[in-house]
């Protein structure tokens, strides 16, 4: 029987706010619960959501009252979260603290406090950062602080892993790549049968081919994105008139809102494209599928993207994907589902032209995309792989197995302070060693923070002794599904 863990997911970003990180946390927690673990979620209080809440599947959410600074990221007060965090952790008997999203100060503080309390920590990075501008430098320094003493890091793509390793000066073996996933059932093509059991697929015949597109059939290009600069809306604005000019029987559907929406509208009016470009405005995540299935091609002009869940969703809906070759996007989908473009206006127009031509020639069997995507990405798989990370850091699987032979044999090349499963020490002096290497001034400052944190921890142990804190009863755990084969 594999060990089960009590896991606390900590992030500033959770429902009711919509977004990629939020649904990632929710889906991962749900699937981990299905595998017999206990998962709670700690986030800050949202308007109308305070206190402790249970979601319908028994997922427990703690809404900690915190001052929200910007776009629902809480105000970074390094130590003020500690008392209530310790209380929650002791009450729920947490073993592993799993933080999400690099812009969430709650997550970083929780990792620091958890290490002070002697818990295992995991951090998942969802975003890419540059190294050039001042804001990035500052954010990278903070990330270095928080990740100096973390047991394992999960990134959503290989590009994201490289970025995080560079930003936080991590040992690459400490960083796992576990992609996002999609709930394929929520992104079915239009004519797809509602329930297709995956197990019986061997006997299932592939879905009937779509009616072939004639040369004069209308091809609809869908764009669903927040209309920001880094989502490439400027490229889109420049490319749309040219695409529509080159290809007469095409039209656009654009969903999403943002500061660049006005540019798009201006472009539509200047080129008199009102009947060929439809702007839907902001839509909810549940409606994304309904918009996607109206189209044939999904156009994704983003300038930076760690994973790009939306293109997976689009492919799952049976859309042929045209996307810019930036960030982690080239890793996400196989080449027969996508047409890549450089982030240039000309190339985007050309790539869209190629996609339209391929569809018109009926060379792309988009009706098969759904099943393929379903087999590539599933949250169950993500949960299993995350579980392996938990096993690795808790010592359930051996160090050699988790990190590989070559790493253990060449252990002399790794710094002694850098953590390793089983070797990762909770002793304060070892932790201080790790923080001290962060920089000439920053290292000392970080050490100071860690020492203060430790003193607060001692004070809390005196003021609120552990035995005075109630242990809360667990939601009935699900029986762990018998895998037959154990992961790892």
């Amino acid at each position, binding site marked *: 029987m594999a060990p089960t863990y009590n896991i606390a997911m900590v992030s500033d970003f959770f429902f009711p706010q919509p977004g990629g990180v939020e649904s990632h946390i929710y889906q991962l927690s749900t699937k981990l619960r299905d595998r017999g673990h206990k998962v709670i979620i700690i986030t800050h209080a949202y308007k109308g959501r305070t206190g402790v809440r249970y979601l319908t599947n028994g997922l427990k959410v703690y809404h900690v009252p915190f001052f929200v600074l910007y776009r629902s990221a809480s105000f970074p007060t390094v130590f003020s979260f500690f008392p209530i965090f310790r209380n929650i952790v002791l009450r729920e008997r947490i073993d592993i603290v799993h933080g999400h999203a690099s812009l969430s100060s709650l997550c970083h503080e929780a990792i620091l406090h958890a290490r002070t309390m002697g818990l295992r920590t995991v951090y998942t990075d969802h975003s890419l950062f540059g190294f050039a501008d001042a804001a990035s430098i500052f954010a990278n320094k903070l990330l270095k602080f928080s990740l100096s003493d973390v047991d394992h890091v999960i990134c959503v793509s290989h590009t994201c892993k490289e970025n995080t390793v*560079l930003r936080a000066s991590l040992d690459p073996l400490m960083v796992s790549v576990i*992609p996002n996933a999609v709930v394929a059932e929520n992104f079915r093509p239009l004519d797809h049968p509602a329930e297709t059991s995956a197990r019986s697929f061997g006997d299932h015949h592939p879905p009937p081919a779509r009616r072939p597109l004639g040369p004069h059939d209308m091809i609809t290009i869908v764009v669903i994105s927040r209309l920001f600069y880094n989502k490439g809306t400027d490229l889109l604005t420049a490319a749309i008139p040219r695409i529509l000019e080159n290809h007469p029987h095409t039209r656009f559907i654009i969903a999403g809102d943002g500061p660049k929406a006005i540019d798009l509208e201006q472009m539509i009016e200047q080129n008199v494209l009102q009947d060929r470009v439809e702007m839907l405005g902001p839509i909810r995540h549940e409606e994304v599928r309904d918009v996607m299935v109206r189209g044939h091609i999904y156009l994704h002009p983003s300038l930076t993207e760690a994973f790009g869940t939306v293109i997976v969703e689009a492919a799952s809906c049976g859309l042929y994907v045209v996307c810019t070759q930036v960030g982690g996007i080239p890793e996400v989908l196989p080449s027969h589902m996508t047409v890549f473009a450089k*982030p240039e*206006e000309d190339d985007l127009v050309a790539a869209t032209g190629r996609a339209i031509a391929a569809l018109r020639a009926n060379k792309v*069997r988009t009706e098969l995309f759904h099943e*393929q995507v379903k*087999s590539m990405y599933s949250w169950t798989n993500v949960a299993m792989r995350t579980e392996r990370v938990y096993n690795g850091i808790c010592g359930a699987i051996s160090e050699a197995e988790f990190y590989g032979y070559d790493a253990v044999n060449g252990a002399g090349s790794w710094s002694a302070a850098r953590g390793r499963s089983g070797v990762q020490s909770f002793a304060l002096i070892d932790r201080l060693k790790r923080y001290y290497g962060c920089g000439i001034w920053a290292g000392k400052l970080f050490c100071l923070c860690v020492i203060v944190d430790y003193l607060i921890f001692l004070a809390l142990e005196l003021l609120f002794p552990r035995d005075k804190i109630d242990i809360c009863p667990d939601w009935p755990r699900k029986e762990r599904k018998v895998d037959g084969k154990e992961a790892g």
Partner: protein
Amino acid sequence: MAPPSGLHHSAVPSDFETPYPPLVRSSTVPASLRSHRADPSHLAPEDAYAPLSPHRHPGAYVRGGDGSGTDARPRRVRRDDTSRSRSRRRKRFQKLLWVKQSYPDNYTDQATFLENLQRNPRVRPYDFWPLVADSTVIVQHVCSVIIFVVCFVGIFQERVSPVSVVGWGSFATFLGWLLWDWWVSHETHEGSGDDGARGRIMRGGSRTYREYRPPLQQDSSGLGQSMPNVSTVSISSTSNLPSATSSTSNLLQDQLPPHRPLQAPSSAAGSSTLLVPGHAPSRSVSSVNSIASQGTNPNSPTTTTTTTHRLGPDGPDQPPTPSPTARNSRAYVRVSTIKSAILIYFTLLGLSPILKSLTRSTSSDSIWAMSFWLLVINIFFFDYSGSSWVGSGSGGGGGTRGKRMPVASLSTNAALMASTVLASRLPSTGQVFSLTLFSIEVFGLFPVFRQYARHRSRRYHVSLTVLLVLGAGAGVGMVLGDDDAGGWPWKRGLLGMLVGCLIAVLAMGGCAWWLIGLQKYKNEIYGPWDPARPIIISRRHWDDD
């Protein structure tokens, strides 16, 4: 088609539980992509759902279970015959997320990890002499600030008469303006296309020209020079430097009543009536001015032809031979410029008593400190790039015909504020007026001239730099000399020049050498995580936001 792959699954214990339906390649791959399979390094969709044997140690990797897979697929058998290297290469770690890797998640491939990392991709090494040449711009500006401070100290210690300072300053400004204008008209007459700063200046000039439609029928007047700008009536000439240029030049023009009829017999009556009395230096200046202006166009029989000659191609949109309305509009422009110049002049004169008592309640120490920091701000925020004339109409799609705005307005404002607070320390109204006017000339107009001189020719630029360094050195030397020497401390001035030159050479060479030495610490990191820079051609204007 499915059963063979099922066998495949049972034969190969996967890294993870793999309940995924085994698809068969032939049903999934688009027809057009079949040709890609010949390429051994290309991935196929089946890599996603054909997991290989569990594998943790890349060195000890043996591709087990492939036999069952190959047996099950006749297509693959054929291919394996043709390319054995391909099957070996397929074991390789791939940076793909949709492929079921046979490696653990934290596997780091030595070959592909950070393969797209670029270090210092856009660094171009500096050369010594171009760097030194570029640093002359900074030296020029620092020297002009030093000269201003020296003039203030001279006025403050009552060593030099404020009238002579402003007189010589105005004279130099006027000469500079003549030169500048001659260059402009000369270059435009040559018909060379507008490039860089000059082109923008020209466009701006024609814009102002368009703004003022000619309601008056007046003959051309003045010195036969084009006046490309119309100043708005405001005392804060920092917002629009070229307007200040013309205003001060007009101030000078206004001081030339006796000579004006000589040049422009049919000049506008309104402008020639002005006489600023009681300024002996300005009289002498004006006579020299007239000579200089006549020297610029010695062989022009009448003013009208000269004006046509000079004014005609002033703007790029203008036809080579301007219509009479264009000339009239030029005259109108000139008249309104003169009006506004008079206004600025008298406003300064009227404000001087107020400025004089502006900081009476503040101690001198605070003023020195404040003006020091303001001048430091001026030096640090000055736009040395030489491209300070940008269209501010960023919102519009056209944007090329936007209003001219100096980028370095913070710098200029700081300098003018410094001069104002410094002027408020002076005891008499005349001194305050002189210093303020001088500061407008030094900080408002002189940078325009310097920039244009640099653009025009390297020789002018270098000689101007040398002149400024010598002047600043001499000024500092003289000011530092003791008062009781009597007369002009020439020796100290010469010594100052020498020391100034030495310091300038050392600073320019040393800083350039230092900067080149520092280049080895440069470590810029670029990679696929950086936001891509979109290349958009159909829109000319692009705000990076």
